[in-house]
Structures are given as C-alpha cells and as structure tokens.
C-alpha cells in the first residue's frame, strides 16, 4: 500500500536533506566551472608539459567513477594530510569531477569563437584580458549554455553518491527514512520527485539563460552570411 503520509512525517528531514543536496550541487557546480574555465585557459598556453598534465587530469577524472574519486578524496585524503569534513569533501569532490567536463565544454566553446572576432579586437589594440572578457566569453556563452545546463543536470544526480561518505543530503535522509519505516517504494518515489524537481528547475533556468544570451540573434541570419542579411535590408 502506498503511504504518502510518510513523506509528510519525514518532511522536515527530507527538506533539510534537499537543502544540503542543493548546497552541495550549487557549490560543486561553481567550483567545477571556475576550475574548468581555468584549466581551459591554461591549456591555451603554449607550454607542452602543462597541456599534457591537464589532459591527463581530464582523462583520469572522466575515466573513473565519481564514487571512487570521492572515496579517494575522503578516505585517502588523510594519508596525505588532507582531512576533510564529509560535506566539504563532497562539495570539493563534485567540483573536481565537474571540472573535467566543464573544461571540455569550455574548450569546445573557446574553439568555436569565430577567429575574425578575436582578430578584429587584436587589430584594434585590445589586450588579451579585455578580449577574453568582452569578446570571447560572451561569444562562448552562446554555444556553451546548453551543454553547461546539461552537465549541471547530470551533476544534480551525482550528488546521491555523497550519501556514501555520510553527507546528510537527500539520498542520505531518504535511506534513513527507508531503514526506519521499511517503506522502500514511497522513499524511492519521493526521491525521484525531488531530483526531478531540481532538474526541471535547472533546465527552465537554462532555457531562460539561453534566450538571454542569444537575444541579439533572434529573427536574424548568422553574421557574415550577407545573402540572407541583405534579403531583409
């Protein structure tokens, strides 16, 4: 028998867990993006060894399960003097895991920036920093918002792994509820609902962002194709 009253009874604990999930996810995404962007920029430097190291980092992170990375960080960390509290380790772990993927997303976005737009800025005497801020990043946003949102949606679901190192997030609270009430089905259903809510919110936000960063392109042809541009003129 489906007993939804359990969800009400465990409501406060679940909401708290949901809050921790959102916190870990949000902070993890932020760290992942900042780190990923930095990695992408460092990869542009003409220093071969640095490129190899970054590539190896990305391959290792993408090639191993998040669960194992998290264990290594949380349980293996103390061996090298890195003693982290569970939630901190969880956030950092998510950030590191996400950084490899974000670095690849940003790299693709960086390469997709039309070279001419950068050359125009260079020929006007703009510095690399100014070009990055004013030309490259805005152009990157257009192509990278969809994959960024996609990665963020994936990361919402990776947060369940944090329960294994006892981060009191949603999965952890749900397991507690299941253990105490034996209501496995309700628990799983409730969980699915919560994560779906989060993913839905993320993708809605993503669509808004996408509309915002591409607003200057609406109802217009891509730049440079004079054929269609002139048809309207």
């Amino acid at each position, binding site marked *: 028998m489906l007993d939804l009253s359990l969800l009400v009874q465990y409501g406060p604990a679940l909401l708290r867990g949901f809050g921790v999930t959102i916190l870990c996810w949000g902070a993890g995404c932020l760290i992942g993006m900042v780190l990923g962007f930095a990695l992408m920029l460092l990869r542009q430097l003409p220093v071969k060894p640095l490129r190899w190291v970054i590539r190896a980092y990305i391959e290792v992170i993408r090639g191993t399960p998040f669960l194992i990375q998290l264990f290594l960080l949380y349980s293996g960390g103390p061996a090298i003097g890195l003693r982290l509290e569970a939630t901190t380790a969880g956030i950092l772990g998510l950030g590191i895991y996400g950084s490899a993927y974000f670095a690849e997303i940003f790299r693709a976005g960086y390469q997709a920036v039309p070279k001419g737009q950068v050359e125009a800025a260079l020929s*006007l005497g703009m510095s690399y920093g*100014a070009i990055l801020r004013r030309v490259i990043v805005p152009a990157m946003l257009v192509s990278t918002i969809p994959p960024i949102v996609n990665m963020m949606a994936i990361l919402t679901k990776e947060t369940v792994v944090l329960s294994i190192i006892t981060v009191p997030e949603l999965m952890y609270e749900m397991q507690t509820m299941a253990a105490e009430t034996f209501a496995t089905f309700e628990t799983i259903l409730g969980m699915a609902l919560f994560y779906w809510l989060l993913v839905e919110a993320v993708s809605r936000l993503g669509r808004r962002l996408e509309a915002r960063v591409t607003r200057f392109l609406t109802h217009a042809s891509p730049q440079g194709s004079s054929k269609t541009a002139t048809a309207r003129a």
Partner: protein
Amino acid sequence: MTAVSRTATPSRAAGQGDTVQGDAVPMVSIRGVGKSFGTNEVLRDIDLTVNKSEVVCLIGPSGSGKSTLLRCINFLEVYDRGEIRIEGKLVGYSEDTPRRRLSNRDLRDLRRNVGMVFQQFNLWPHMTALENVAEALVQVRGMDKVAATSHARRMLDRVGLAAKADSYPARLSGGQQQRVAIARVIAMEPHLMLFDEPTSALDPELVGEVLQVMRDLAADGMTMVVVTHEMGFAANVADKVAFLDRGRIAAFGTPREVFHESTEPRVQQFLQTYHERNSF
C-alpha cells in the same frame, strides 16, 4: 605621374602620390619580406613603400599572397624574413640582432595606430553598432563610457549609419555592417588603415556604399593599403597599384602604369580574365 589618382581625389595634396620626399619617413616600408607556411613560400622578397596619405591597392589572383602581405603589416600574420616598418618602427620584432618577437604589450602599441577592415566585417554580434564602435575607445584608449559613446555616435554618423546605432549586427545588411566596421576603426584615429577585400563578401548592389566611404576616407588624406578585386576602385582611387603573383610583386606603379602600360604577361592575363568576367 599620378594623373589618374589626382583627378579622382582632387582634395589630396599634390605630390603625395610621388616618390619619397627625402626627409619624410614612409608610413609603411616593406623590405625583402618573405613568409612560408611549411615548405610553401607564400611571400618572396617583397619590397613596397607606402607614403603618408597614399592609397595603395594590392591586386592579383587569389592565392597570390595579397591578404597574407596585408596581415603581415599589423603582424596578425608573422613574417619570417625581411622587415616591415610603420612610421620607422619595426613591426613585430625587436631592433637587436638576433631579433626577438615583440611582447604582446609592444604589439598593442603598434596596432592601435593601424586599423584593419576585414572581408567578413568581424563585428562583435553581441554588441550593438554603437557598442561595437565604442568598445575599443574604452578598452584601449581609456575613454570614459559617456565620451566614448558620443564619439562613437559621431563616427557612425560619418559613415551614414547614425540611425542604426542601436541595431545588433545581425539586423544590418552586409554593407551596413562593413560601414560599422569602418567606423569602429576610424574612431581610433589610426595613422594607417588596412582593408582586406572589404567588399568581397557583399552582394553587388551593396558594394558601392562601402567604396564610397573608402573614397571619402582617401579624400580626407587617410593612408590606406587595400586588397581588392574592385579594379574600378583601384584605377580611380589608388595612387599606386601593386600586382602580386605567386608571392611576388610582379608589377608596381600608378594605376595607369599597371593597368594600361604594363607589358607583364601575368598582369595582362589577369586583367583580361577580369574584363571577360565583368562584361556581359
């Protein structure tokens, strides 16, 4: 000697089209410049002088190295041999031997006096026409936003696009985009302007408006190096024409000398192909 160009641009001071006047440092001086992409030698031993207020057109078949040469002048393309000087200053390299590549900062100092107009316009699509023009004024010249905006507005007015100030590039025709790109360059008050096939991406009926803006600039005394397939523009506006073929300057002189008096077979052949394609 430069009868053709003088009649076309009567406001230009007499004598500007003539050879170097001894004391004057040429705007651009190219000596023995060569460049290779791997084993492919795209520029060989190029010599070219552009004096202040001169308009020099680079013409020739595609793949002849015109655009590469132009891009070497502001070091968007790195040349391997020889030297290019702008107002006496060596482009891209230090003066010591062996020469080293200049730092990005030194390159920026050079480039802020050299404007470039591209075939594909290269406006920044996320900025309005006005923002495109104002951007470098703020970032490079350090103007405050208000001053930069009003200066940018005047520049758009100069190319006849004051009404389009708040339009994004995607809403402008090719010709309008190219005029915004020109406004973006002249706002920086460059000493020299480089044009890389500025009308090649335009529909034929839009070529005229861009060429008119360029004619006005020439009449105002702007020094210009123009890679173009518009032979009419080269004949009427240029002080000098350089014909490039396979990385070399095969003919150089006034438009009359190159178009009508040159006996160089490659020039003849090129012009004949051009005439055949443009007659109907």
